């Protein structure tokens, strides 16, 4: 492969990733998608999940994202998310605690109100973080 695509993952706190990649895979709301250089302009919302990309040295890298948006342009992918962490930066014990908390809350309250939805999304976040952290 000769050309690389620029990947930027931006959160309110900082730029998590800003580097060249050969291919980027991201979890769109309507399904996982991959972006190579020369992609047609594309905008999508993201699910909570994991972004995978191959860097210039052929290494696979993983970044957890908590929802957000992705904009793909022919030479650049920008991902906007409220929080994102590289695999090495995930705080496993914190995620495990969050999982416990969320499970407990779901156990107590099965009414399906706002708190229930909130606990469910928290659980999804925790599970994604933990499963990613365990592969390192």
């Amino acid at each position, binding site marked *: 492969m000769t050309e690389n695509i620029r990947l930027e993952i931006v*959160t*309110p*706190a900082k730029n998590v990733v800003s580097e060249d990649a050969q291919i980027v895979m991201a979890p769109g*709301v309507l399904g996982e998608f991959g972006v190579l250089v020369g992609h047609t*302009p594309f*905008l999508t*919302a993201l699910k909570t999940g994991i972004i995978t990309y191959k860097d210039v040295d052929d290494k696979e890298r993983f970044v957890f994202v908590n929802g957000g948006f992705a*904009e793909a342009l022919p030479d650049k992918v920008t991902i906007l998310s*409220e929080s994102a962490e590289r695999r090495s930066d995930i705080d496993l014990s914190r995620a495990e605690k969050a999982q416990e908390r969320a499970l407990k809350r779901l156990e107590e309250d099965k009414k399906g109100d706002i708190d229930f939805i909130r606990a469910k999304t928290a659980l999804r976040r925790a599970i994604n973080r933990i499963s990613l952290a365990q592969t390192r």
Partner: protein
Amino acid sequence: MATLKDVQIKIGAVKKTKQITKAMNMVAASRLKGAQRDMDGFKPYADKFAEVLGSLAEKSEQKSLLLAPKEEVKKINIILFTSDRGLCGGFNMNLINKAEKLIEKSGTDKEILFTAFGKKGKSWCKGCNQKTDYEYIGIVGSKFDFSVAANAGQKLIDNFIGSKYDEVYIVYPEFINVAKQRPVIKQVLPIPLLEKKEEIKDENKPFLAEHICEPSVNELLDVMLPKSIFVQIHSALLETSACEHAARMTAMNNATIACNDMIQTLTLAYNKARQAAITAELMDIVGGAEALKG
């Protein structure tokens, strides 16, 4: 006339005050640096977000609930950003004056509710019998993350859709530079659409219009509009923090200068008094010697 001892004590006191104001100045300076770093960190996100939102808004003809003005405006929510702590010059007063102007402008027939970020704004509301709906203390001027703005923003949106508020404004200081802050009023809800169209004209990116969107443009916009409010609140919070520290730095710098002036005047008074005492003593001695001669 003050005795020598009195003046000496006073000089010591002013010197100590100067030490404190100087230390506060330096603390504020280092906090300001941190706040500015946070602000710079958020900028790429905010800019990109505005860009994407602008291009989406251009394509969408949909009238979202958050965009539509209410037919009759009765209840107004003002989000007042102030600091938690004082000793920062006219910083909080400027913001409060701005809010007062907004109340005046909106007329007397409307119900005004406040959301207070910061203790100073909250106690002002209490002092002049303004109703506060939500209070957030201990956030401005410290470390906080995006979830604060997201939670506060969600409450606003719920209340707006539930017709508890008909219009929402924010009053916060705009950070121009370290020496200059300007209180500004911005309308948050209903989201002003006109502004967005202007933004698009500035950006000459024709390819943005050819985006494929997933899910549809309207659905994306539905998700992004609430987030744009969170972004606005978060950036207002960041700016308020930076401005608070900048204002405190300036105020403390002025106080240190005032202390220096005072020390100077007092030292002059002290020296004069001392010289007067010496002269009086000399006169005594000379007088005594003259008397002995005679």
